[in-house]
């Protein structure tokens, strides 16, 4: 079995499908036409670019090329993770980068060195796509977690304040919002794990099968990946929520509500 070659013309044919979305947008007055066009262009440009970059990296195959690429991927994920939510606080970006970086790299290391045992240790064909998949999912968990935490603290400010006034420690006062936030961050991964194989065939597995790999081996890889993703997004979410908690509650058991500002306000200043 060999991979069917795709010419650029074939790709252009598929791109016509985005016209369906555009037509819907116009018909339903969704006002999304411009956004759709932009998203389509980004998809094409970003993927073509990464195709060339990866081609070059795989060919060059040196740790000092692979590692910086992984750092850049991580930073982009970290910055993207801080862009959700109507409210933000000074330091949200740092918290997002730190929690995504630490959890993804730790879990990727476990997967690459202990489970898959790649050689050499930076083998780009494994390291880059696996880190990428972990980053993508951790980013979702982290951004949902931080968003929910700031939302809960805003909505429940009275209760948090009441708990502190009664003599609650800062952790006792923040516990419930933090718990909700971690839950919110972990649910997408849990949902994904519940339907994998039944409703969705994950992209990586599909890719391996298309490339002629035996489905049974592809499935084993996919199972490993799912657990790596679950672990990293759980660790990342908990880490991000705890970092947010530390920013917004002082050691004097105070809730620093004034640090939570609307995103628009921050942009104006």
């Amino acid at each position, binding site marked *: 079995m060999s991979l069917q070659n795709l010419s650029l013309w074939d790709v252009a044919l598929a791109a016509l499908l985005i016209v369906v979305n555009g037509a819907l947008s116009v018909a339903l007055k969704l006002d999304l036409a411009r956004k759709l066009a932009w998203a389509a262009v980004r998809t094409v440009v970003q993927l073509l670019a990464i195709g060339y970059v990866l081609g070059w990296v795989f060919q060059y195959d040196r740790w000092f090329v692979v590692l910086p690429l992984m750092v850049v991927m991580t930073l982009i994920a970290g910055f993207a993770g801080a862009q959700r939510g109507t409210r933000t606080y000074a330091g949200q970006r740092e918290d997002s980068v730190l929690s995504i970086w630490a959890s993804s790299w730790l879990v990727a290391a476990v997967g690459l060195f202990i489970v898959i045992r790649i050689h050499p240790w930076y083998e780009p064909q494994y390291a880059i796509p696996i880190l990428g998949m972990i980053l993508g999912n951790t980013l979702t968990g982290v951004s949902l977690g931080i968003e929910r935490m700031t939302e809960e603290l805003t909505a429940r*400010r*009275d209760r948090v304040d009441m708990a*502190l006034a*009664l*003599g609650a420690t800062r952790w006792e006062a923040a516990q419930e919002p933090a718990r909700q936030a971690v839950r919110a961050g972990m649910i997408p991964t849990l949902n994904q794990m519940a339907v994998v194989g039944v409703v969705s065939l994950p992209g990586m597995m599909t890719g391996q099968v298309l490339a002629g790999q035996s489905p049974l081996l592809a499935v084993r890889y996919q199972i490993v990946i799912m657990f790596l993703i679950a672990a990293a997004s759980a660790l990342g979410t908990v880490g991000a929520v705890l970092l947010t908690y530390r920013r917004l509650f002082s050691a*004097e058991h*105070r809730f620093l509500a004034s640090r939570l500002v609307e995103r628009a306000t921050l942009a104006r200043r």
Partner: protein
Amino acid sequence: MTDIPLVDAKDIARRDPLTGQMLLQPTRFALHAGDRVAITGPSGSGKSVFMRALALLDPLDSGHISWHGKRVERTAIPRYRRNVAYIRQRPAILDGTVEDNLRYPFTLKAYRDVRFDRARAASLAAEAGRGESFLDKRASELSGGEAQIAALIRVLQLAPEVLLLDEPTASLDPESSRAIEGLVHAWFDVGDAPRASVWVSHDPAQARRMSQRHLTMRAGVLDEQAAPFEAAPCAREIAGGGAATTRDGGQERTQ
């Protein structure tokens, strides 16, 4: 009564963390056992800022607070707040029944040594003119007045030394207001334990009823007032209120 105040604020001051504007000018304030203090002043003059500062709920920009003559350290803050209880204008009620709300404090570390006592809670409810069924009422069914009564019982059952009441009856009907005042009176008169209260009010008559020491807050400056409250400060307060609301302390703005 000893010379050492229960709560001693030494030159506490607070600025708006965003604009840097002075919300509370450096203020000295000593609260002795047996003191019943009332504070009046226009909206946004810093009364809430001062009360929250006394409860150590907001970061101070300078000064510090002593409790029984000892500076309150970080780790002692939950314990301090157990004894110096802050009652907010808008009560925060948790989901569940009134009893669930009254049980909540006992889940906190600061109250490990005490247990919830339903009989005591019921007798407090009775003092506020509510039957024992009040404890089983759903939080979602409480009127504004009942919610404030529940919030006050939640604090009073814990027998705090000091009550900081931040306009607890500002939006309540007269009957609920009287119930709140009655509960505070009963708490104050109990036994020989040292007690003191600070009551922020818009109502000069209530301030007279609930205090023997009168202070005014104006643009972040707290002043001792020699004469008892008259009708006049009330009129001034209304006149000053509109102009002063924009320079609020951030506490009331977000409510």
